[in-house]
């Protein structure tokens, strides 16, 4: 492990594998093929690749139509456009129409980096999570990406996959299998539960767990790759074991993972909880490292919240 892979390369490799086995798989792009790196798919399946130009709304609508003929369309664009720009088309033409469109939003949150605030989606999970029956997931490493893309293809119904496009550390063994709606336990612990999503924050949560361990604090770390449907059983189990929860997301703390976890806990097992994520701010330009610090998306911030929430638990 500890190797690094370009996520987009894994994505296109997986998509090609799927397309070889299933001729229903088609690909749609909105003039971002050179960014999403899907030219390889086009080379192999030219007749099943549609570049719709800079027109995300139209791309999602066309994907819906393709799906009505039985195709399984994967439609890619940056997460900001997939969610903000094409929301009504995805909502009505794809989801409300009960079709089978696989929307992929790349460059989530701070990973939009040098494209800056206009391209920085801190709200896409929140928007998507309000669509009935939609599956919403964000892989954290190359192995989970490949697995979850396959899960999305197999799922009968629309999915939104939030995809880290650039390189990411490998967290899982190649043999690991994934299921939509079932979080992955990365390590068990009993003092505080760290529930994280996505490549940026799962890695920060793992780092935080190491720092905390050095201080004698045992953290239970879960990769909650599917935020809808959320793994209620796992959330409740972690809250029972640890009695204190911190969520970690490269997203607004409103309506993303933190909200999803809070909704479970407040109804089933009220537990002291803190949310690490972006707080009432728009995106900005800068390097990923700069932006992680700017928005408080680091292991240090997670540790601070972990200690705070443990304190609240013991004060209770």
């Amino acid at each position, binding site marked *: 492990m500890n190797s690094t892979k370009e996520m987009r390369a894994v994505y296109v490799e997986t998509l090609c594998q799927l397309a070889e086995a299933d001729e229903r798989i088609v690909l749609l792009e909105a003039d971002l093929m050179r960014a999403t790196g899907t030219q390889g798919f086009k080379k192999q399946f030219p007749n099943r690749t549609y570049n719709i*130009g800079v*027109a995300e*709304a139209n791309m999602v*609508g066309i994907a819906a139509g*393709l799906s*009505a*003929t039985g*195709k399984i369309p994967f439609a890619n664009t940056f997460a900001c456009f997939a969610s903000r720009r094409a929301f009504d088309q995805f909502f009505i*033409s794809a989801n409300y129409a*009960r079709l089978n469109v696989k929307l992929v939003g790349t460059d989530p949150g701070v990973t939009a980096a040098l494209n800056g605030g206009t391209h920085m989606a801190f709200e896409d999970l929140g928007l998507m999570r309000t669509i009935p029956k939609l599956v919403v997931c964000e892989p954290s490493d190359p192995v989970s990406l490949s697995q979850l893309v396959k899960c999305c293809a197999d799922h009968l119904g629309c999915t939104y996959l939030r995809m880290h496009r650039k390189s990411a550390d490998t967290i899982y063994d190649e043999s690991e299998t994934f299921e939509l709606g079932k979080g992955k336990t990365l390590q068990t612990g009993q003092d505080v539960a760290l529930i994280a999503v996505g490549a940026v924050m799962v890695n920060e949560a793992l780092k935080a767990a190491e720092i905390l361990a050095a201080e004698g604090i045992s953290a239970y770390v879960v990769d909650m790759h599917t935020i809808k449907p959320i793994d209620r059983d796992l959330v409740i189990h972690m809250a029972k074991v640890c009695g204190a929860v911190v969520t970690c997301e490269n997203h607004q703390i409103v309506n993303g993972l933190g909200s999803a976890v809070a909704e479970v806990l407040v109804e089933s097992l009220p537990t002291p909880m803190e949310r690490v994520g972006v707080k009432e701010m728009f995106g900005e330009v800068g390097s990923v490292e700069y932006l992680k610090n700017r928005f408080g998306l680091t292991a240090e911030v997670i540790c601070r919240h972990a200690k705070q929430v443990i304190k609240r638990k013991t004060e209770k």
Partner: protein
Amino acid sequence: MLDEKTIKELTSKATEIRVLTLDALGYLGVGHLGGCMSLVDVLTLLYYRHMKIDPKDTRKRDRDQLVVSKGHAGPTLYSILADKGYFPIEKLHTLNKGGTDLPSHCDRNLTPGIDMTTGSLGQGLSAAIGIALGNRLDGIQSTVFAIIGDGESNEGQVWEAAQAAAQFRLNHLVAFTDYNKLQLDGFMYEIMNIEDITAKWVSFGWFVQRVNGHDFGQMDLAIERTKAEPVRPSMIVLDTIKGKGVDFAENQVASHNMKMDYATALRTIAKIEDEMGVVNE
């Protein structure tokens, strides 16, 4: 060319559809009367002369498909589908009632015979393109028809789709614009002028024809001509009258979504049937 007998049959069928639709809307007491009536004639021509469909096999893979992008014209479609045997005619009185299969806007999951869910204006032409592309992949030669509203054409997505259909050379896509010159808030030239509508579609790379949307002969000829088009998608601009055939609604701004009492609807139906009777004699 349509012969006189066929034109007479289509006219008579269109009157039946008008009556059924007015009856359903009148029974409910409110609805999108104007835009439903402007489409009766073209939908009658499509369903009773052109579309290859099978009411017993509503999802037959190689059927012709129709996306009514101006989804609020659903009630006209429901009258036709009921008449064609997709569901019992009595169902038309359930229009817009809680739990109905016949909602105000077209829904592919609720209503047998509806090919695409529409209602959020601007989206249907994109879906029709997707269906046409899917057909092409599967080697299916069927025609995908789409109907967009003139007011709907204010939406930018219509023009995104217009570019894509030409780019993908979708010559099996035949779209119509229901050009009744009225949008919800008023006449189009006052709200958002669409002229020169034919020049716009021509410049987007479509094979464009403009005909009287209440003249079966002209419309039929236009549809026949699209079959010889080897490359371009087709746009047939239909000059129509909003509320066509219903005297209290024709050309009225208020006809977009209009209240009416059932007694008035029934009186108008009697009048329409009387007039038709005279024609048939």
